[in-house]
């Protein structure tokens, strides 16, 4: 597969300019920061509250922005114009995802600092959030590719937001409704589980399990987004 750093950079710079001038989308970076400030003095299980902020931010910032960037390119036919240049499918997807990845990483790091969350294993937390950003970016790409317009894309992210953010909370009713156990395998539930396990100093095996499940989600959704991208652009 043909990948060029120059072309990825061209797409990244273009997306950065568009993003910084599109206030309806760029305002999303304020949500995680606002949530971090709002909940910083909240009493209770810090790991669970922090996991909620991260899960909400990943859907509301990462998936939403990526879906909007992709859908806008589709709506205005610029994605097809890009496809006619030497940019390969990977150049376009990496270039577009790189901006969302960096913005998400910076905003989540700043929100973590504002919230005042401290962990005994920074590397593991960084890896879990990094992999989560990749998977939520893939979800955003899929939502964007399925949407015909920017409005449709922004609405399509809401089911993701509701299921992934509320999933870990719904597990409180697992005993009454056993079918809810399936929600345990959501990446958001796994992130919550990982953060709680880190806080109680769980063994390496218990920490590895959620990370592996999040990684599987990331790989599968990334592959689906690549396949969908190719299919959507060829057949239209």
């Amino acid at each position, binding site marked *: 597969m043909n990948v060029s750093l*120059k072309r990825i950079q061209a797409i990244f710079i273009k997306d950065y300019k568009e993003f910084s001038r599109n206030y309806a989308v760029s305002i999303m970076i304020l949500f995680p920061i606002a949530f971090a400030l709002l909940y910083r003095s909240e009493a209770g299980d810090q790991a669970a509250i922090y996991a909620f902020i991260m899960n909400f931010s990943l859907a509301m910032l990462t998936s939403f922005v990526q879906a909007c960037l992709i859908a806008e390119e589709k709506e205005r036919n*610029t994605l*097809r114009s890009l496809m006619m240049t030497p940019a390969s499918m990977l150049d376009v997807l990496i270039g577009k995802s790189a901006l969302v990845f960096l913005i998400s990483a910076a905003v989540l790091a700043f929100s973590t600092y504002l919230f005042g969350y401290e962990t005994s294993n920074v590397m593991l937390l960084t890896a879990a959030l990094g992999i989560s950003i990749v998977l939520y970016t893939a979800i955003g790409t899929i939502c964007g590719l399925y949407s015909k317009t920017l409005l449709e894309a922004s609405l399509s992210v809401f089911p993701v937001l509701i299921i992934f953010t509320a999933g870990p909370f719904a597990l409180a009713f697992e005993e009454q409704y056993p079918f809810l156990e399936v929600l345990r395998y959501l990446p958001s539930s796994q992130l919550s589980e990982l953060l709680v396990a880190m806080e109680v100093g769980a063994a390496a095996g218990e920490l590895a399990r959620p990370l592996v499940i999040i990684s599987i989600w990331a790989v599968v959704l990334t592959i689906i987004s690549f396949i969908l991208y190719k299919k959507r652009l060829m057949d239209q």
Partner: protein
Amino acid sequence: MNAISVQNIQKAFGSNVALKDVSFEIPKGEIFGFLGPSGSGKTTLLKILTAQLEATGGHAAVMEMPSGMMQKTAQKRRFGILTDNSGLYERLSIEENLDVFRRLYDLPKSSIDQVLHFVNLNADRKKRVNVLSKGMRQRVTLACAIIHEPELLFLDEPTSALDPVNTAHIHKGLRYLNERGTTIFLTTHDMTEAETLCERVAILHKGEIRAIGAPDELKKVHRDGTLTVELTSGEKERLSMNEDSAAAIAGWMSRGQIDRMYTNELSLGDIFIKLTGSELV
């Protein structure tokens, strides 16, 4: 050497047949026009030639490579395309839009100045695309398609939104590009554009080529064999090509009564209507 070679191309979308056994060749360096109304199959063919669609049958080669190879990076550098679906980045300026393409094609910064001069937009380079008129946007889209001076240029209605002055400017530029070796494949329903710009044209109707040739050749083939003589008195006489007409003309001529005289040729638009029974829309 042919820039494009199409043999028995067919394309169907379910039961809807878009192209039926279309065949033609375009030698390198030619400006070739594809004439046809909306829905005639022009865009389908253009998509097949640029590997955006797969043909149901037949064979198409572009620059001596199967058209399916046109999505390879090396091949994509060799052609440029402007369609009615070509989009621009609304929040970026003209210059910033061109800079995206310049970077993707790995060109020097001077290529932006050259192409802006070509489309007559140098003075407006800092303007954002979302404030541009339709005509200006069309010129920016064209600039994006030709910034890398492609060997082959696909143009779908390139001057449809332009006023006569800008149309003339673009035509001049396209001829200049063609003189430098660019083969141009143009779809249009502007007959004047086809006549002034194209060396050969094909008339496409309901997925079939109804006629192909130089505009003058087509006019000769489809002329009605009559002659119109306009007399100084203001009268117009339509004559057949025969001895009686020759005698009448000789008489008027000897009396100095002929103001103008011309053969009655059909325009390309008339030829299209004659061949297809429908208007160009």
